[in-house]
């Protein structure tokens, strides 16, 4: 890793933000929700009745877990929106890459008239 927090760049700002960050109780609650969501994910693939909606349900649960970690553990919910911006813009492109490659390789060939 080429990044190391600087010495003279102290954390005055981070310290000033500290009170805005959630406390231990919130962190524990999020951990509990994450555990429940993971259990739900594993349960979904084992319940035959849910087979038809398995993919969307799993995707929703995954996005929920992803968002919880990013918003609470990585503090994006509480921090400056600049951090959200420099992360979410590339993240959107990454999701776009995944979706468009799946479309191009898996979905569109089925609709090819010749």
């Amino acid at each position, binding site marked *: 890793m080429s990044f190391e927090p600087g010495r003279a760049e102290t954390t005055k700002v*981070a310290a000033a933000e500290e009170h805005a960050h959630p406390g*231990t109780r919130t*962190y524990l609650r999020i*951990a509990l929700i994450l555990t429940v969501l993971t259990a739900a994910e594993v349960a979904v693939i084992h319940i035959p009745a849910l087979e038809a909606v398995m993919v969307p349900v799993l995707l929703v649960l995954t996005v929920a877990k992803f968002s919880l970690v990013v918003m609470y553990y990585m503090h994006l919910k509480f921090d400056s929106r600049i951090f959200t911006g420099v992360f979410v813009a590339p993240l959107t492109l990454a999701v776009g890459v995944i979706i468009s490659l*799946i479309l191009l390789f898996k979905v569109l060939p089925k609709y090819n008239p010749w």
Partner: protein
Amino acid sequence: MSHAAAADAHHTSTGLPTWKIGFWTFIGSESLFFGTLISTYMVYKGRSLVGPYPPDVFSIPLTTLSTFVLLMSSLLMVLALNAVQRGDRRGSILWLFGTAFFGAIFLGCQAYEFTHFYHVGLTLQTNLFGSSFFILTGFHGAHVMVGIVWLLILWVMALRGQLGPQDALKVEIAGLYWHFVDVVWIAIFTLVYLLQ
């Protein structure tokens, strides 16, 4: 926000720590890296000409366990940051080590999984599944490895009393890295293991 800038001896336009902006940008960049790896796995899903295929080798209980361990390591990481910010030296030492230790358990599970796959005949060269699976999860594992080394360095600093509240940003940035590796795994767990 200008008051924060004024409090600092040097001027910044946003009052935000420069390292944190840079590191979030780096995480954004990493998203594209893992995005392409995941895309490749998804595109090649179901295209292997010979086995073993995913259902032949995956053990959902084991992977669920390692996923849970990695999630809990993220909890320990935020506790470590809290402890460092409060100047709680014992807490810092305990939680930093705990995070690294949970990361090591995750890597141990992965090593076990890889060895097991190897013994049932799945290698990098076997088929498209083997190539795309090992390279995707291998790069993720390498990221976990880097994170563990990083956390252990911070842990040694904490042991020596060199990690006070003034160093919280260092821990926060290590934490951002660690959580990012965790969220990548959240995506991999669903897209690779659960959606077979």
